[in-house]
């Protein structure tokens, strides 16, 4: 189980990296998925561009109500309290514990997860739920793609092969937003069978805004739009959350069967998990 041969570049600037990508390079950031796939010889690039030595890409910045996550910000960064302000940081902090385990979180990056686009990825589900914007750069220029349009299928995104995912931007969540993240999986090492992230705002017991991100509920990360619509304007209640769960399972999700989780079971888990996540997300 060894990678096939490739050439290696370690660009020192983004411009050098973009030149390498234009020449067909595969980006190596955290490498925790890429190297696994290369071991399995499912991916065999001729050229690998290791961006780990480019200064500045590891920045995690907040300005004008927007969080910008650079391409080299590791998963682990989000485990530090206060790394990201407010409820957004709280939500990331709850989600990050479900991403693999500490040694993987030390190397792997949030932007890399978005570039890889595994259907079970926690970050990808949150990106679509939180209206993240993905910054893509190439020698041809820079463009920004909303997460809702970015994911195209399992491991498929709007990113062109010569584009580098340089940053992900998230609007901060209002301070009174309640958040929760739950995941259902078989063991500490397995991928999520279903994971749900939620952000809720309420006024006087009525839901004013709802965001629900679903991981591994379709061939790509989903935002549960129908369930969210059903919630806005509803009073906070177990009944409303259960109904939202049903809606997410039946209308939003498009589960793909896999061993130990056929479509019926997946829908059941989605319904239960969405309801539970929403209950937990009610702002106090």
């Amino acid at each position: 189980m060894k990678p096939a041969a490739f050439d290696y570049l370690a660009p020192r600037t983004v411009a050098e990296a973009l030149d390498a990508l234009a020449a067909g390079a595969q980006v190596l950031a955290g490498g925790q998925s890429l190297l696994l796939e290369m071991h399995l010889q499912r991916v065999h690039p001729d050229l690998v561009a290791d961006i780990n030595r480019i200064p500045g890409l590891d920045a995690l910045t907040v300005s004008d109500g927007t969080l910008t996550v650079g391409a080299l910000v590791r998963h682990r960064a989000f485990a530090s309290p206060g790394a990201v302000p407010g409820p957004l940081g709280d939500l990331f902090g709850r989600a990050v514990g479900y991403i693999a385990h500490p040694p993987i979180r030390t190397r792997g990056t949030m932007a890399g997860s978005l570039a890889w686009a595994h259907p079970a990825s926690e970050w990808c589900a949150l990106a679509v739920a939180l209206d993240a914007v993905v910054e893509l750069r190439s020698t041809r220029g820079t463009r920004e793609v909303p997460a809702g349009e970015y994911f195209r299928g399992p491991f498929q995104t709007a990113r062109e092969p010569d584009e580098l995912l340089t940053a992900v931007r998230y609007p901060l969540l209002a301070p009174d937003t309640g958040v929760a993240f739950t995941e259902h999986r078989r063991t500490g090492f397995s991928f999520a069978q279903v994971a749900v992230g939620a952000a809720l705002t309420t006024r006087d017991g009525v839901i004013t805004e709802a965001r629900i991100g679903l991981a591994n509920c379709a061939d790509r990360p989903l935002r549960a739009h129908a369930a969210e619509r059903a919630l806005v304007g509803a009073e906070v209640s177990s009944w409303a959350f259960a109904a939202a769960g049903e809606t997410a399972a039946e209308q939003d999700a498009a589960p793909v069967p896999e061993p130990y989780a056929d479509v019926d079971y997946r829908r059941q888990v989605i319904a239960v998990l969405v309801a539970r996540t929403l209950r937990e997300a009610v702002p106090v």
Partner: protein
Amino acid sequence: MKITLSVNDDAYPLDVEPRRVLADALRDDCGLTGTHLGCEQGVCGACTVLVDGEAVRSCLMLAVQCDGVPIRTVEGLAGPGGEPHPLQRAFSAERGLQCGFCTPGFLMLAAGALERDPALGEEEVAALVGSNLCRCTGYEPIRRAITRAARDHQKGQDGRHLSA
């Protein structure tokens, strides 16, 4: 590519292919075979080493990524005079190993964490033990060993002059 791996304070000038993973460079090129390969998928953690003080899967890093970066392996865990690391003593005392194949990975994982935070809490220890696979012990003895080492490590730091 010509690189220099700096492992346990020794320099190893190497000429490696870019595809060579760190674990193979350590084992075959540096002759440090204490780092084991159990899955080459980043899952089992037998190959865990410290790169720049951080525990990483050495099967999921390329050797060329580690040019000039300090690396520590199980061979470098004992003190300069060969005095065993508290973790090594604790793993033996708590019977945290049977066949010993996964052991170097657990040791380095815990060593990195202990060095960052000598007062490891229960949750941190649980997350560490939950990061690697062992098929012999059932993990509980490993948890006890890391907990004991954290305790001994602190005691050692507080009262080094008292210990003979």
